[in-house]
C-alpha cells in the first residue's frame, strides 16, 4: 500500500505541476461543452438564431398581404419586410438576409384563377424562395419546408374565403330567383274564392320557397387544368450565374471539410517544432550559415503544399469518388480560379501559422496535440463548418468573427457557392493572411525569448 501511495503521490505531483496539461484537461472540455451545447440547440433554425429571412411582396394584393401576416405572426423565424423582389435579392447578396421569400406579381390573381373553371390561364401563383448558396442545404431545406407549408396553408385559407363568399353569393342569387318565380306564379287561379284564400296562397308560397328544389351546384369550381400545388414555390440561388445552378451538399461540404483538415496540420507541424526545440536541432540551425527566414520559410512552404494537396485530394473525392456511392449532388467547379487560388493559399497559410504558433508555445507533444486538435474543433464549430454561423446564438455568432475557420469558410463559400471573384473574398483573404503573419511574428518573439 505504501508503495502504491508513493507512486500515486508521484503521479499526482507531476500532474499538478503540469499547468498547461491541466488547463487542457479542464478548460478545453468546458469550452467544448458550452459551444457544442449552444450549437446543438441551434441545429433547427428558429427565431432565436441569427438567421434573417426577407419577405418582399411584389403582389401587393390579398394573398401577398395574408402571407406576410401569417409568416410574421407565425413567429418562427426572424423576418424582415423588404420593399421589392429586387431589394430582397440585394439583401441576400449583401448578407443582410440568408434567405428571402418573394411573392410574385399577380400572385393573388393567379391563385383565384384556379376557381374559374373557364379560365384558360393555367399558370399557378408563384413564390420565389431565394437563398444564399453558402447556406448548408439541410438548414435551407428545413426553413424552406416550414415556409412552403405556411404558403400553401395561406393559399388554402385565401381560396376558401373567396370560395365560401362565392357560394354564399350564388345561394343568395338562386333563392332570390326562386322567390321571384314563386311570387309571379298564380297557382290559385281557377279556385273559387273562399275565406283565407289569399292567406293560404301566401303560406304555400312561403313553404315552397323553403324547399330545396335543386339549388346551385356546390362544388369547388377548380379550373380543369389545375392538378398541382396551389402556389408554386420556386427555389433560386442568389449569386448564381445561371438559374440552373443549384448547389448541392458537396458544394458546402468539400470546402468546409478541406478547411477543417487543413487546420489539423497543427499536430504534425507543432510536433515537428517541438522536436526541433527539444532535440536541440533548432538551436543548432541557428549556429549554421542559415537564416531564420530560410528555416521557417521551408517549413511554411512544406505545410502550405500539404494543405493544398489536402484540398486537391478532397476535391477529387467529391468529384469522382462520391458519385460511386450514389451521391448525385454535382460539384460545380466552374469558379473563379484566381479567387480559388487565393482562398486555398490564404487558408493554408493561416493553418500553417496556427501550427507554428502552437509549436512555439507548447512544451510537449501531448500539449500541442491535445490543445491543437480541441482548438480546431472549437474553431470549426464557431466557424460554420458543422452548423451555419447564422443559426448560432448571438453570443457565439459574435465570437465566431475571430475564428480563422470562419474566414476560411466564408472565402471558400464565396468562391464555390457564390461564385465570387478575388474582390468578393478580399476581406477574408486579408484576415487569413494577417493571421498567418501575426502567428509567425508571435512565434519569432517566443523563440527570441529563449
Amino acid at each position, binding site marked *: 500500500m505504501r508503495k502504491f501511495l508513493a507512486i500515486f503521490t508521484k503521479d499526482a505531483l507531476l500532474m499538478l505541476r503540469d499547468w498547461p496539461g491541466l488547463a487542457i484537461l479542464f478548460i478545453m472540455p468546458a469550452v467544448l461543452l458550452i459551444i457544442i451545447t449552444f450549437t446543438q440547440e441551434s441545429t433547427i433554425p428558429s427565431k432565436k438564431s441569427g438567421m434573417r429571412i426577407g419577405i418582399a411582396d411584389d403582389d401587393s394584393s390579398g394573398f401577398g398581404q395574408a402571407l406576410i401576416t401569417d409568416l410574421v405572426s407565425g413567429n418562427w423565424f426572424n423576418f424582415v419586410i423588404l420593399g421589392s423582389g429586387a431589394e430582397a435579392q440585394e439583401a441576400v447578396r449583401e448578407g443582410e438576409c440568408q434567405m428571402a421569400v418573394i411573392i410574385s406579381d399577380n400572385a393573388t390573381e393567379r391563385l383565384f384563377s384556379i376557381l374559374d373553371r373557364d379560365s384558360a390561364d393555367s399558370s399557378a401563383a408563384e413564390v420565389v424562395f431565394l437563398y444564399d448558396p453558402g447556406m448548408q442545404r439541410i438548414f435551407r431545406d428545413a426553413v424552406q419546408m416550414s415556409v412552403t407549408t405556411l404558403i400553401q396553408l395561406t393559399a388554402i385559407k385565401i381560396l376558401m374565403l373567396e370560395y365560401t363568399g362565392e357560394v354564399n353569393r350564388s345561394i343568395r342569387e338562386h333563392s332570390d330567383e326562386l322567390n321571384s318565380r314563386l311570387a309571379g306564379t298564380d297557382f290559385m287561379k281557377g279556385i273559387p274564392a273562399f275565406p283565407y284564400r289569399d292567406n293560404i296562397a301566401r303560406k304555400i308560397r312561403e313553404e315552397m320557397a323553403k324547399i330545396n328544389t335543386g339549388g346551385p351546384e356546390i362544388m369547388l369550381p377548380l379550373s380543369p387544368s389545375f392538378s398541382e400545388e396551389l402556389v408554386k414555390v420556386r427555389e433560386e440561388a442568389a449569386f448564381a450565374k445561371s438559374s440552373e445552378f443549384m448547389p448541392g451538399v458537396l458544394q458546402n461540404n468539400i470546402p468546409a471539410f478541406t478547411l477543417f483538415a487543413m487546420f489539423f496540420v497543427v499536430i504534425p507541424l507543432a510536433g515537428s517544432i517541438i522536436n526541433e526545440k527539444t*532535440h*536541440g*536541432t533548432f*538551436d*543548432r*540551425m*541557428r*549556429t*549554421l*550559415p*542559415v*537564416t531564420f527566414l530560410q528555416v521557417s520559410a521551408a517549413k511554411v512552404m512544406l505545410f502550405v503544399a500539404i494543405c493544398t494537396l489536402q484540398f486537391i485530394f478532397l476535391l477529387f473525392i467529391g468529384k469522382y469518388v462520391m458519385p460511386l456511392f450514389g451521391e448525385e449532388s454535382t460539384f460545380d467547379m466552374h469558379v473563379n480560379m484566381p479567387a480559388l487560388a487565393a482562398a486555398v493559399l490564404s487558408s493554408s497559410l493561416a493553418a500553417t501559422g496556427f501550427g507554428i504558433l502552437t509549436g512555439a508555445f507548447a512544451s510537449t507533444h501531448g500539449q500541442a496535440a491535445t490543445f491543437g486538435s480541441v482548438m480546431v474543433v472549437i474553431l470549426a464549430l464557431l466557424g460554420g463548418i458543422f452548423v451555419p454561423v447564422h443559426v448560432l446564438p448571438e453570443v457565439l455568432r459574435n465570437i465566431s468573427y475571430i475564428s480563422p475557420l470562419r474566414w476560411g469558410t466564408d472565402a471558400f463559400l464565396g468562391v464555390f457557392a457564390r461564385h465570387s471573384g478575388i474582390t468578393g473574398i478580399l476581406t477574408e483573404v486579408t484576415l487569413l493572411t494577417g493571421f498567418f503573419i501575426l502567428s509567425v511574428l508571435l512565434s519569432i518573439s517566443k523563440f527570441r525569448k529563449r
Partner: protein
Amino acid sequence: MVMKPVITVRDLVKRYNNSGETALRGISLTVHEGEFLGLLGPNSAGKTTFTSILCGLITPTTGTVTIFDAGIPGSINRIKNRMGLVPQEIALYTGLTVKENILLYGRLLGYHGEALKKRADELTDIFRLEEHLSKLLLHCSGGIKRRVNLITGIFHSPELLILDEPTLGVDIQLREMIFGYLSELNRKGTTIIYTTHYMKEAELLCSRVNIIDNGMLIADGTPSELISESEGCADLGQVFLKLTGRDLRD
C-alpha cells in the same frame, strides 16, 4: 611567434531575466589561433552559457565578444561559416538516416554536388559509418549518434571548433578515435574550445586550460603550469578540486 587572437572576450556578464540568476560575472579571456583550449568547471559554473554566447545563441547582458574581428552577436552571420559547434545533446533528426543527416548539414554549410559527396564519403570513412549510412538515426546506437553529431559540426573544416562534452557517454574506443581526430585537426591549425568534466581528457588534449566557477574565470594556463603552480597537486583533477572545492553544485 605571436599567434593572432581568434576570440577576445571582455568583462562578459550574463544575467537571466526570468530567473534573475547571474551565470557569468565579468569574464575576460583571449583564445589565440591554433590553441586547444579546455574549458573546465563544475556544474552550473557558466560553461554552457559562455559557449552559447560565443555561438550567438544567447545575448550577453554586458561586455564584448569578438570572434575573427566580428562583434558577437551582431555580426555572427558573417563568421558562421568559419565556426563549428558540436553540442552536448545529439542535435540531429532521428527521422532521417545517418547519410541524410550528414548530407543535410553539409548542404546547409554550403556544400553541394561532387564536393558534398566527396566530403561526406571522407568523413564516413574516417568515422567508420559506411555500414550504417542507410539506418534511421532513431535506430542507431549512442556511439553512432555521437559520431554523426561530431561529423555535422566539423563537415566544413571550421577554423574555430567549439565542442561541448563530445565524449559524454561514449566507450573508450570511440573516445580514443575522437581524441585522435581532434588532435589531428588542431595540428592542422583548427582552434578548438573543448568543454569537459573529464580532467584526464583536458590534460591529454588541451594546450591551455581555463577553469570557470560561479561565472568567473578562476584559472588560466597550460595543464602543466596549473599543476605545478598548485601545491600538493599531482594532476589536473586535484588542481580542479583545490580551486573549486568539494561542495556539491546545483
